């Protein structure tokens, strides 16, 4: 575009203000300097001190958790196990996640003390079959979704960080070969499970998880990986990554052990979810061994993506519910024109609609998850749930801020953070797996 005089002047000013001479002359405040360098930093090679996973010598045969037998009747009640899990996780959310969420968001890190207090929950054990040391006996996408819902009620960013290794364990339980399961799953049942994450999203507009641009080609010794992944949850601290790449024209997942490997990594902080320590990872002719390909002939990439969608929906429902639970007391306490603002239909009806749409999201998600759990086809249901959650969760976030007015826009209240976090529901595909 040709520059007019005003554009030219602005562009010159911009170049001057970016001139390092200003720094040498001491004309720039230290704060500005940080901001400047922060945005300029490119990929840097990082050697991750990942843990070693030894190839299992006597590996167990491939295990697939059986479908759960459903009752004959329509039933919305949770079973005793699900009630116990949701109850304890809700308490964790209220007492640990919610009080730490603001600080985690501002510092952009996952607080170590939360890691310690949540480790004892043994979340990853629920994803691992008994043969490998876990407690899973059958398919449990409903429980996974309920877990996501409860944790995201506390904070979506912290929930994603907690769910990253859980999701990798789910994926290896669901899809891994016997050798892969024997090698990796027992580690997820130890006191200090490995940090692991699913790297799926790529920095491109209209990203379609069914068509990643990252490629894998078969080599004499295994595979060679090329491409760039974005918004990888806890990506800078992972022992293990599951990476989506196209092999022979078909999308597959690859297991990448980070130990002893030099990875090209850069920060990828976003609008929200800042506690996840998200990074971009660049794979530049990364060599992988032959057993890095997740699963065998029964691997179903579409179902892999659908199970990710279930969890994403669970997260959306949890944070949206947090919004509703927050605006109700706020609008009852906030007075204007001599009465609580909740006495006005324009306010009250917005709240009714939040409740309707949140339950809509929840019921679609539960139905898709319960079909997956029973071994029924669930691609249609997961797709519809995801589409509805994409649309409605952001509406909930936006109306949540609106209901608080100016108070919704400032960090004194958590609603602006939920607004930022809820934007990710429609944009992210990776990180989670039911």
């Amino acid at each position: 575009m040709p520059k007019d005089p005003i554009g030219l002047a602005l562009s010159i000013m911009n170049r001057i203000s970016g001139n390092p001479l200003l720094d040498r002359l001491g004309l720039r405040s230290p704060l500005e300097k940080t901001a400047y360098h922060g945005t300029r930093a490119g990929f840097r090679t990082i050697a991750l001190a990942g843990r070693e996973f030894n190839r299992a010598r006597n590996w167990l045969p491939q295990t697939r958790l059986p479908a759960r037998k459903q009752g004959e009747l329509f039933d919305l009640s949770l079973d005793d196990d699900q009630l116990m899990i949701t109850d304890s996780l809700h308490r964790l959310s209220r007492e640990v996640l919610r009080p730490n969420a603001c600080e985690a968001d501002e510092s952009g890190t996952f607080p170590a003390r939360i890691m310690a207090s949540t480790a004892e929950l043994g979340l990853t054990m629920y994803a691992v079959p008994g043969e490998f040391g876990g407690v899973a006996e059958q398919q449990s996408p409903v429980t996974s979704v309920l877990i996501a819902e409860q944790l995201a009620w506390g904070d979506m960013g912290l929930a994603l960080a907690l769910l990253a290794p859980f999701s990798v364990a789910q994926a290896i339980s669901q899809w891994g070969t016997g050798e892969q399961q024997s090698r990796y799953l027992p580690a997820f049942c130890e006191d200090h499970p490995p940090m692991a994450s699913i790297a799926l999203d790529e920095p491109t507009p209209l990203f379609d998880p069914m068509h990643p641009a990252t490629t894998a080609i078969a080599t004499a010794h295994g595979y060679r990986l090329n491409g760039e992944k974005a918004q990888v949850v806890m990506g800078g601290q992972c022992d293990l990554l599951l990476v989506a790449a196209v092999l022979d024209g078909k999308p597959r997942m690859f297991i990448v052990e980070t130990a002893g490997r030099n990875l090209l990594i850069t920060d990828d902080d976003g609008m929200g979810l800042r506690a996840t320590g998200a990074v971009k990872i660049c794979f530049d002719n990364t060599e992988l061994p032959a057993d890095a390909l997740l699963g065998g002939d029964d691997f179903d990439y579409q179902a892999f993506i659908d199970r990710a969608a279930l969890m994403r929906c669970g997260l959306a429902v949890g944070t949206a519910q947090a919004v509703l639970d927050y605006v109700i007391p706020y609008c009852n306490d906030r007075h204007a024109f001599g009465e609580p603002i909740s006495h006005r239909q324009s306010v009250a009806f917005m709240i009714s609609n939040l409740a309707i749409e949140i339950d809509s999201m929840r019921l679609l998600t539960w139905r898709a998850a319960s079909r997956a759990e029973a071994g029924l086809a669930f691609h249609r249901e997961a797709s519809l749930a995801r589409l509805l959650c994409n649309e409605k969760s952001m509406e909930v976030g936006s109306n949540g801020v609106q209901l608080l007015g100016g108070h919704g826009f400032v960090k004194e209240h958590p609603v602006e953070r939920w607004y930022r976090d809820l934007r990710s529901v429609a944009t992210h595909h990776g990180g989670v797996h039911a």
Partner: protein
Amino acid sequence: MNLEIPGKFAPIIHQARQVAREVFRPISRKYDRAEHAYPKELDLFATIMDGMNDGAADGGAGAGRLARSGGEGAPGNRNGTNMKTVLGLTELCWGDVGLALSIPRQGLGNSAIAAVASETQLKRFGSTWAAMAITEPGAGSDSAAIQTTATQDGDHYIINGEKIYVTAGERANAVVVWATLDKSRGRAAIKSFVVEKGTPGMSVERLEKKLGIRASDTAAIRFDNCRIPKENLLGDPDISVDKGFAGAMQTFDNTRPVVAGMAIGVARAALERTRDLLAISGLNLDYRQQTWHLPAAARELHLLEAELEAARLLTLRAAWMADNGQPNSREASMAKAKAGRVGSQVTLRCAELCGSLGYGETELLEKWARDSKILDIFEGTQQIQLLIIARRLLGKSSSELK
């Protein structure tokens, strides 16, 4: 957790679907054009439906069976009459909403009788076809403001007033009328009375000409010193604050999911037809997790389907709660609000997507887009549902949140 329709309801769904396809659809356009003509094809069908209910071991389905199933019987999860009625009506309205509303002995009055009648009254009126008369020229959603009076005179009540929007008011054998025993005592004094057809003093003034559901007659009825036996007062004659009006309003907790189901039925009809028409013209309707690569029409259809599915599940939840004796006022209103607006949204958008085909009378799409609108109005408008939901969520009384 299981959100699938139980197999035991497959027969009634199948039967209702057959009726919708073989009885309703072929005469759907005929009675849309011939407004106020009596659809005589329904008489035979009504007899079959009576037979199905009488023979049903689990209490049957339909307007007259609602409300009495909740919370009874063995403990544990129940899928009963409320869910069954919702499922049946959904299928029938997939066929035609107006005709479904005209099925003899399935009027809203039958639900009211089922909800509050004594055993003796049930025997007397249980097999009557009863319409429901609540709305007045000066009182719609604000049903506590009705002006129709019932004055006791010995062993009789004398009813005076005017009722409008009485569905099947001329065809039914009786009308359940809401009237006040004492205007100064507010809503607690509002009672419902059964007035049988032919009672002197009751006259049908006119039948409305309507936007949709033309197969269903909508009567304006005048009561002029209409004298009925005092046994025709449904429920408790005492004016007490605790019972009465609140009890009458409870009928809605059971009927609102049914009306929601009706909206789901007509919306599904429109969506299915539109999918078929668009598939013929080559539109790929495969489900995707990333929908922004799809043609706008395909993405919109997926979104409408998701909205419809949400309405359907909210409705099943409300019916399921009623079947299990759980208070479901909020959930019933959520189902009605969602299904009511989704019904309009889906049918109107489907007519739009199909262009002149959707607008013309060769297809039924334009008719469904007219029929669906009433479902967001009667049995409590969208706005009344939102008010009920908000009061429950916020813990507000009707005097605080007006």
